[in-house]
Each structure stands twice: as structure tokens, then as C-alpha cells.
């Protein structure tokens, strides 16, 4: 397949880097200011290096990438809230040209799911978005395999930054601010960690799952989620939980039409008490009990792996 990759962060760059290994050709690669476009395939390594050294991926205009020759548009620009732009516009552009879309950007399917589905119905192109929930973990494809109507609840740890902070606080008896600073030094947490520690990122993932489970019956956005973060949790709360064989994790839940994210008590050695940046999702199935999917929920190559799995689904 010929790919146009929009977004040159960790995920977009990893898709460009790994595409050849999966048998695909990158014909366009763009960040917000520049693009590299070549119908026969761009020099991915050169573009990635140029992004690192000069801050641009090539000499072309980003519009040229969108208008170029490709079978699949890979949307890997940052997630934005509200109107989900410019990601949504990119999806619209590709679908209007009857091209497929693979999203790594959560915005369009978390904030404008019905709009995306309406555009998809009018298009010969299809939209896949495995990478938006749980990085490398096959969460949405597992739901698709079982059938969304055979999944009764989904819950899990869906943000590695928050989980890293909570597991360090519990293991070392340290306070939130201390562990956050450490996480920032290690590059696990962003300079502005609000999106992760206030539960917004986990909530967006849960909203996407809720949209998939609901089919076209109801559209969910962030406004439908009840969200609590971890930044007000004192170390003493984790100590007390620990005395009782429990720990606290930031858990996202989609059950009975409700979307909820917040710190919850879980058994210390239970499946949900994953440590560090590991993620886990538990699916309650109608006839097959509980199913756990655990793995790396973020990261460039990890998320790119999910993107390329979607591209392979489109190629079949």
C-alpha cells in the first residue's frame, strides 16, 4: 500500500521508519509546516533525519502531502479536543478522495465519531483506529473479532504516565510531586502532564471504546465521561491501601453506557495492578468470561505497530 503519513512526532516517524519492513511505500510525509512527497516513495530515513536536524521533513507544502498519491492516509498529528482539528480535516480530505484512513490521533474518533462515520459511509475509503486505544495492544480488533454486542464491559489501565506515577508512589512510598519530577526526568511524563494525570487521555480512549461498543446507536464524547485524576492523591492513600493488600490504579471503565475514569482500589497482586508504563484492558464477554489484553500502551514503534496492523487489514 502507498501511505501518506501526516504528523512527524514519535508515532508518525516510526510509521515511516517501519513501513518498508511491512511491505508498504511511504509516498508522502508531512508535519505542520513541511512535507516530503514522492509518488515512487520518499527517502524515509533522510526525512526523519532532516526533521531532527532542521525541524522540517522536506521542501514541499503539507497540502501537497494530502493531495498526493496514496492509498492510506495515516493521521498521526497531536490529539486535540473539541472540533478535533486539524486531524478531522485530514480525515475528511482523504475520505472525500475515496482513500482509506488509519488514525493514531484520538481526536476524530473520540470527539467527532458520528461525523467520521458519516463521511466514511459516503466514501469508498474505510477508517481504522486500533492505535488510538492501548498502543500496541489489540483492543479494538479483539472487540471487532468478538463483535461489539458480545462485549458487556471494558475496564483497564490505559495511561502509562499515570500508572508509572502510581506504581512508583506505592513501591517507594514517595509523594506525587517527587515521582512526577522523576517521571519527567525519565521522559515518561511530559513537561505538562495534565492530559495524562488528570485522566483526560484515559477518558478519550474509553470514549472511543464506548463509541465502538455503541455502534451507531449513540455517540459519546469527552463530555459524557466522568473523569477524576490522580494529582490530588497523597502518598498516605497508597500506604493505607497497601496495608490491606490493595493498591490504587487509574482505571477507565465502560460499562452499561457509562464512561468513567478515576483512581480505584484494586487487589495488589490482581491483574489490573500492572506496574510502570504497562497497560492492561479487561474485556467482559457475554459467553467467554473475562479476557485480559496487556502490553505497551504507548511509544513510537509500539503505536506504529498498531497503525501498520490496520494498514495490513485494509490491504487484505
Amino acid at each position, binding site marked *: 500500500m502507498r501511505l501518506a503519513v501526516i504528523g512527524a512526532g514519535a508515532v508518525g516517524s516510526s510509521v515511516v521508519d517501519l513501513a518498508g519492513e511491512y511491505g508498504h511505500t511511504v509516498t508522502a510525509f508531512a508535519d505542520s509546516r513541511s512535507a516530503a512527497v514522492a509518488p515512487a516513495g520518499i527517502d524515509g530515513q533522510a526525512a526523519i533525519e532532516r526533521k531532527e536536524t532542521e525541524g522540517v521533513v522536506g521542501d514541499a507544502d503539507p497540502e501537497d502531502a494530502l493531495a498526493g498519491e496514496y492509498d492510506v492516509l495515516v493521521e498521526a498529528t497531536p490529539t486535540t479536543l473539541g472540533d478535533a482539528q486539524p486531524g478531522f480535516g485530514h480525515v475528511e480530505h482523504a475520505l472525500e478522495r475515496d482513500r482509506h484512513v488509519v488514525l493514531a490521533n484520538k481526536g476524530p474518533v473520540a470527539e467527532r465519531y458520528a461525523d467520521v462515520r458519516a463521511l466514511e459511509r459516503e466514501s469508498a475509503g474505510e477508517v481504522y483506529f486500533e492505535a488510538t486505544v492501548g498502543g500496541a495492544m489489540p483492543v479494538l480488533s479483539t472487540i471487532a473479532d468478538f463483535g461489539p454486542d458480545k462485549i458487556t*464491559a471494558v475496564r483497564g489501565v490505559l495511561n502509562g504516565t499515570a500508572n508509572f506515577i502510581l506504581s512508583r508512589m506505592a513501591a517507594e512510598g514517595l509523594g506525587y510531586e517527587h515521582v512526577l519530577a522523576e517521571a519527567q526526568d525519565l521522559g515518561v511524563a511530559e513537561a505538562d502532564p495534565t492530559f495524562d494525570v488528570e485522566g483526560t487521555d484515559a477518558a478519550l480512549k474509553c470514549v472511543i471504546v464506548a463509541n465502538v461498543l455503541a455502534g451507531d446507536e449513540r455517540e459519546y464524547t469527552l463530555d459524557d465521561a466522568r473523569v477524576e485524576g490522580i494529582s490530588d*492523591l497523597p502518598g498516605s*492513600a497508597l*500506604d*493505607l*491501601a497497601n496495608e490491606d493488600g*490493595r493498591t490504587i490504579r487509574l482505571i477507565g471503565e465502560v460499562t452499561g453506557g457509562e464512561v468513567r475514569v478515576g483512581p*480505584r482500589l484494586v487487589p495488589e497482586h490482581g491483574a489490573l495492578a500492572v506496574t510502570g508504563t504497562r497497560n492492561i484492558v479487561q474485556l*467482559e464477554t457475554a459467553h467467554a*468470561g473475562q479476557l485480559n489484553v496487556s502490553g505497551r500502551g504507548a511509544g513510537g514503534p509500539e503505536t506504529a505497530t498498531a497503525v501498520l496492523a490496520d494498514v495490513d487489514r485494509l490491504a487484505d
Partner: protein
Amino acid sequence: MSDSTEEVRAYTVRLELVDRPGELLRALEPIADNGGNLLSIFHERGNVTPRGHIPVEVDLEATPERFDDIVDALRDEGINVIQAGAERYGEELTVVLIGHIVDTDLSDTLSRIEDSSGASVRDFSLSAPEGRDGESSARVRLAAQRGETEAAMDIIHEIAAEKDFQVVEPLTAGDAA
């Protein structure tokens, strides 16, 4: 993988047995065979149902996963299971409260939970590293009567809203059975 690490909980199953020798034993075997720990058996011999069956109430401990297997095994044996899991006898509920717990009248908080929900406080633990005037955390373990855990949680949320506590709730292990 999670089978051995899931929390053991107490459950009540209500069965209806045919009045015939050996039926009680036949009903208990699937529980023991599937890793359930029998706590008590209440055999209401004098109280026959309209269909002429004998109601039996069995309290047991098991992990949520094993409990599912137990209920399935009972049904496979042709035992009539009237009620399973939905009403858990003596269910324990642990919550962590965060906020100004000490200087917002701790005993009022605890007695209101007990008075208005039918739950009793089994265990209470406080951590106040900043002293009594600062923010503290408390772990409260409640033993709720059957079907009362939701009422207990409602009261806790009501008090929390009033006294500006953050509540860390337990995650319920799905809608088993």
C-alpha cells in the same frame, strides 16, 4: 492467569432441593469440586416451597471466576439455583477517603455511615502525616448487609460531597452470575 490472584469474596447461593435423601450432598459437591470454601449451610427443612422443594442457603468463599464455575456446575447437575451472587452475604467493602478527615468530625463520619446504610465499620485506619489540621487519608472497611453495598456507597459519597473528601472506591469485579 488472574485466577489465583483474584480476590476471594463471600457469596450466598440460594438453592431449591428436591426432598430426597442425598440431595444436599449432591448440591455441595460442585461447590467443593470447583474450589469454593463452604462457610455455612442453612437448610430450611420446615419451610417447603409451593412446589414442595426445600430452600437451602449456602454461604461460601471463592474468587469471582471460580464462583462463576460453581454456579455453572450446580446448574449442570440439575440443581435449581434461585439466586447467586447478586446478593452477597456479608460483603466487605473497602474505600479510601482523602481530605480533612480529622477536623471534619471523624466520629460523625463513621456513625453516619453505620446509621444510614446498615453497614458496619469493621476496620478503620488513618494516616495523617501533616497532623490533625492537614489533609489525611483514611481506609474504611465496611461489612455491608446483603444488597446494601450500594446504599453504603451512596452515603459515603453524600458525606464526601459535604465534607469535601475525595473517595477512592473499590473496583467491583464485574457483574458475575
